[in-house]
């Protein structure tokens, strides 16, 4: 059930009516939300609803046991329970996402040393959103162990992991953000509703018009066969993919935040104009914020962060970014993408610490352009199906064949538009929402209808799944 479809629209209208229909009965509201979330998830594959429920029970039970231990007198038991919980989550993720990949690599390694074997590959179907809900479960366990959040009830914990707006592609909403909201009866505000509707419509436009058009008309054909395209095509397709992935993924986040707002819940920011970043470290404060802050809080800091000297800080950055790359999938291209981001962030850290006094800083505009191009280089590895495919793509750019292109005026216009929105005032949408909250409901409804009609007239036929569904 994809967000920008009529099936989801009808599902959401029914959920909205039922949820607000129960009035102030908060427990019933949560039970109905949970059922709605399972219906939403079951629309992909009913079998994985059981996995979701099992995962929620596992995290709820482990957290309850952790909370019962005495921090002072039973530190070993507390650590063992936490280690068990984290290992169980990683086990779920590892089995569904990485089992076949690691076995294939082992097979290749054995073949290299002359021990060729048929590996017992399982060809496992990846449950949609498994990376998101397992990370959410782990952060909950760690937060309970760190006494940052109290243990949640079984209903709240199950709903935290299953809540349909964020279930399949984030944002990774932490227990500390959502559980306190589940404990009280949600209350709407007009500003929240106006911003929610604005985010839904804006997300719909980014996904259904910009991302879909760029994907089908430019990016997919060029990445499918780089050798059949000119260098100019390859460069434009690389820029096109940078805009496509932003418009695709941020659209999902915007719609998720907007849908949750219409149900009375607040989700945190997940994007903040990432292509206006002045460094890779700045980029990660603006791109997929819920994942980057997760990696910072639960991995980088757990590894020691910047404590222990410069060399250790650089090592921790590299480990964090490599594992961040691997989080996206079991492919070498993701590892290289994470490695590239890690190396550049290490260089930035070294430069910040060791830069000779008095040397000038890079002008802001130049820093933005340089950062964007490093990010775009990374996207080539991220998008390519194989490492060889990415190298063929880069070779093609180096061929220097700039004479022709398949890029249409519309594709160029959408790329420029996708970049231009990064340089609008950061609070523009909130400013519009502030004005909209004073508008009569009928006019707001008509305006919403007109904009959706406009988008629907522009959208590409059919809706491709969101890129981040595969993670």
């Amino acid at each position, binding site marked *: 059930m994809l967000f920008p479809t009529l099936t989801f629209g009808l599902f959401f209208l029914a959920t909205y009516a039922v949820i607000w229909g129960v009035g102030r009965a908060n427990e019933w509201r949560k039970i109905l939300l949970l059922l709605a979330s399972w219906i939403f998830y079951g629309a992909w594959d009913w079998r994985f609803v059981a996995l979701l429920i099992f995962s929620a029970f596992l995290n709820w039970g482990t957290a309850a046991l952790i909370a019962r231990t005495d921090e002072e007198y039973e530190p070993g038991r507390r650590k063992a329970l936490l280690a068990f919980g984290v290992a169980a989550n990683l086990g779920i993720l590892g089995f569904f996402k990485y089992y076949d990949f690691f076995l294939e690599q082992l097979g290749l390694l054995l073949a290299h040393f002359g021990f060729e074997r048929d590996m017992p590959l399982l060809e496992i179907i990846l449950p949609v959103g498994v990376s998101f809900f397992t990370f959410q479960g782990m952060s909950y366990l760690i937060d309970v162990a760190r006494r940052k959040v109290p243990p949640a009830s079984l209903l709240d914990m199950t709903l935290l992991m299953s809540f349909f707006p964020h279930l399949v592609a984030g944002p990774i909403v932490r227990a500390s953000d959502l559980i*306190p909201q589940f404990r009280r009866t949600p209350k709407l505000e*007009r500003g929240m509703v106006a911003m929610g509707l604005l985010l839904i419509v804006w997300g719909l436009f980014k996904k259904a018009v910009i991302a879909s058009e760029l994907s089908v008309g430019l990016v997919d054909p060029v990445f499918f066969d780089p050798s059949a395209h000119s260098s100019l095509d390859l460069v434009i397709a690389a820029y096109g993919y940078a805009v496509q992935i932003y418009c695709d993924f941020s659209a999902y986040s915007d719609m998720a935040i907007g849908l949750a707002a219409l149900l009375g819940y607040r989700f945190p920011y997940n994007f903040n104009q990432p292509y206006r970043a002045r460094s890779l470290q700045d980029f990660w404060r603006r791109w997929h914020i819920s994942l980057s802050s997760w990696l910072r809080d639960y991995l980088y800091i757990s590894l020691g962060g910047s404590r222990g000297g410069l060399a250790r800080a650089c090592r921790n950055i590299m480990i964090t970014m490599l594992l961040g790359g691997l989080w996206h999938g079991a492919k070498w291209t993701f590892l290289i993408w994470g490695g590239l981001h890690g190396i550049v962030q290490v260089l930035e850290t070294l430069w910040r610490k060791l830069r000779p006094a008095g040397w000038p800083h890079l002008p802001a505009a130049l820093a933005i352009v340089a950062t964007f191009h490093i990010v775009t280089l990374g996207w080539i590895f991220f998008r390519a199906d194989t490492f060889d495919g990415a190298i063929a793509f880069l070779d093609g750019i180096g061929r220097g064949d700039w004479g022709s292109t398949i890029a249409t005026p519309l594709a160029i216009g959408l790329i420029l538009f996708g970049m231009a929105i990064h340089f609008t005032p950061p609070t523009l949408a909130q400013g519009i929402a502030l004005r909209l909250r*004073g508008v009569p409901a009928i006019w707001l*409804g008509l305006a919403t209808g007109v904009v*959706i*009609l406009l988008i629907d007239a522009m959208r590409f036929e059919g809706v491709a799944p969101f890129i981040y569904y595969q993670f």
Partner: protein
Amino acid sequence: MSEDHHPSPVDLPGGPDFHGRPLRWATIAIAVATLFLGLFNATAINGWAVELAPTPLSARIVAATEAWEETTEAIGIAAPRAWLHARWKALQTARFKGQEKAE
């Protein structure tokens, strides 16, 4: 025990929101938008219906959405969407000078 809170884009600046009856306001806005799209976007509704898995129920839904699409075309309220779609298609087929024309 502290709780982390990350800012949300739906928390607007400028302090509390004193506008009254937000649920009623939201529900009316959503209902009007739905009604508007039901009236003016029958093509998309029928497009959705024909993609449904074939069952006796979906056959009835398709018959109803087709009839509704024909009605909206007959009374002219499908025209704005059709006009917008045609303009967008023209933009899609536009090419730079020297490029092959779209099929």
